[in-house]
């Protein structure tokens, strides 16, 4: 069991609230979106109708999931106007704010897997099945191939992401078992297993946000004290190293890896305020070169 709590240093330095700012904002975003969807079926207040596959807000704004629309296209069906417009809006939005911001700020499964990840850490569950993080891209390709071969949106038969959101709005049924399976898988079998290794929805959105302007930047990487809290809290820790430790290698401080979910937890847990939201263009390779080179000779 880890004696040191992740972010303890940051809490001591910045206070609890400042050390949980982005986490709280993210939970608020996830829960209020869910509440907005639930207002209809629970209170009869139809601000938003539909679910994450497609929704209509205030009877005017169409939003559709570009991944499911792409599957329909591959299956040989061109969706009607509203479906296409909705997909376009969502595509542009996630292109701007980072594709996998969907995972961190919107997707309801994130609540489940974050809880599993937190519990895994608290219970000190060690050991994790080794599966490549790029498996999700193979699964993404498989879902599209299957859509084309079967002429149906095959992945939607089993997709836990849409199953959970749809279930909360239209009745869960056995979807609760599927979500429980994802939770147990992340807790006992593979650390960050679903969202970080397998989920093709996240893989799709990572492609969407490959060139997103809004990124997280280790702009004060010179101040890094190698406490490793950011690596431990990050759901995709492999994305941090090039940016944080790249000063001596001519790599800029912006986290360019498409799988960074823009969740902002690294900003929260860093007692030295190394990380911040920034634009990908503000990426000078010589940022913090001096001190990190010094750190590299010392630690790496």
């Amino acid at each position, binding site marked *: 069991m880890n004696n040191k709590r992740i972010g303890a240093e940051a809490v001591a330095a910045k206070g609890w609230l400042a050390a949980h700012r982005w986490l709280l904002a993210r939970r608020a975003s996830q829960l209020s979106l869910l509440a907005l969807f639930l207002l209809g079926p629970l209170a009869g207040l139809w601000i938003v109708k*539909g679910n994450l596959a497609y929704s209509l807000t205030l009877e005017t704004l169409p939003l559709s999931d570009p991944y499911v629309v792409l599957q329909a296209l591959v299956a040989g*069906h061109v969706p*009607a106007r509203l479906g296409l417009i909705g997909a376009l809006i969502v595509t542009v939005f996630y292109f701007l704010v980072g594709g996998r911001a969907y995972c961190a700020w919107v997707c309801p499964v994130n609540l489940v897997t974050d809880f599993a990840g937190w519990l895994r850490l608290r219970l000190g569950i060690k050991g994790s099945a080794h599966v490549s993080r*790029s498996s999700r891209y193979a699964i993404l390709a498989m879902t599209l191939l299957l*859509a084309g071969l079967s002429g149906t*949106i095959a992945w939607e038969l089993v997709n836990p992401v849409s199953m959970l959101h749809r279930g909360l709005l*239209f009745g869960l*049924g056995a979807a609760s078992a599927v979500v429980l399976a994802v939770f147990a898988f992340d807790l006992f079998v593979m650390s960050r297993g679903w969202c970080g290794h397998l989920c093709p929805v996240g893989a799709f959105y990572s492609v969407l946000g490959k060139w997103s302007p809004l990124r997280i930047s280790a702009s004060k990487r010179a101040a890094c004290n190698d406490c490793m809290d950011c690596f431990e809290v990050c759901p*995709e820790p492999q994305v941090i190293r090039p940016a944080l430790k790249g000063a001596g290698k001519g790599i800029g401080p912006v986290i360019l890896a498409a799988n960074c979910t823009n969740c902002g937890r690294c900003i929260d847990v860093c007692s030295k305020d190394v990380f911040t939201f920034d634009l990908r263009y503000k990426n000078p390779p010589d940022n913090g070169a001096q001190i990190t080179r010094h750190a590299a000779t010392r630690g790496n």
Partner: protein
Amino acid sequence: MPTPGTTASQATPRALKGPARRQFVLDSARLLCGVGLLGLGLAAYTKQAKARPPLAIRPPGAGAEGDFLGACIRCGMCVRDCPYSILDLARPESPVATGTPYFTARSGPCEMCEDIPCIKACPTGALDHALTDINQSRMGLAVLSDQETCLNFLGMRCDVCYRVCPVIDKAITLDLRPNTRTGRHTMFIPTVHSEHCTGCGKCENACVTDEASIRVLPAKLAKGALGEHYRLGWEEKTKAGGHSLVEDQGLVDLPDRLPEGVKLEGHFDPGSSPPLPSLPPGLGGEPTAQGDSALRKPGTEQGKRLSSKDAR
């Protein structure tokens, strides 16, 4: 595998040498096997999901099941906009494809709204926006599936399915038949006409027997099909403006069996005179000169009468 998220050192397999390359190939093989296995399982499940249970009916405007499953993105907009809340999204445990909309006629039939809000709500056109007249929708086909329990077939006047039908007297008619059991009554047989039945399910919903005796089934399951080559003489004749298709074709008339001593103008009965010619015309035989010839003689008044009998 060069993918977003992997670092530069992992991304160039060509640069790898010896054990590293071996490891890369093995890892790739492992990944492909795993995902392939997953894909196979999903493919098998997909195939099964295409077989919708017959009593789950799609909303109006849904195409063939295979096409529908490629077009419906499971958003539930149709469910939300149905004013009678008859639609449901299938849950994972149900035999209907997960997340797709359906209704069950026995518990809640389609009320056939004139403005068809479910179709208007559909963002993908999985429910066909070209369908604007609900009477043209074909959600299924009503079938009087059990004549042994249908009260009208038992000689009573239930008529409920006929009365509730939104397309009354077209989709369901009551056809009269003598009740041979009592010998003195009439049976009013509910008869479904597929060219008008929308498959809304109101008949199944209203049927008074414990298990519905009339049911809406997928048209594919319920409907027979005549061979392409079939021509119904009486219909062809109407289409041709009263002119028979077989008239003037020089066809051989086959004998009609008539009770002894009965004569019918224009009919040939081998039991009555005159006898058959030894050979049919065209093979050397000559049609007899007498009135009731066995053979049609094109152009003559008698020939016309014969062929008009054929046409019936």
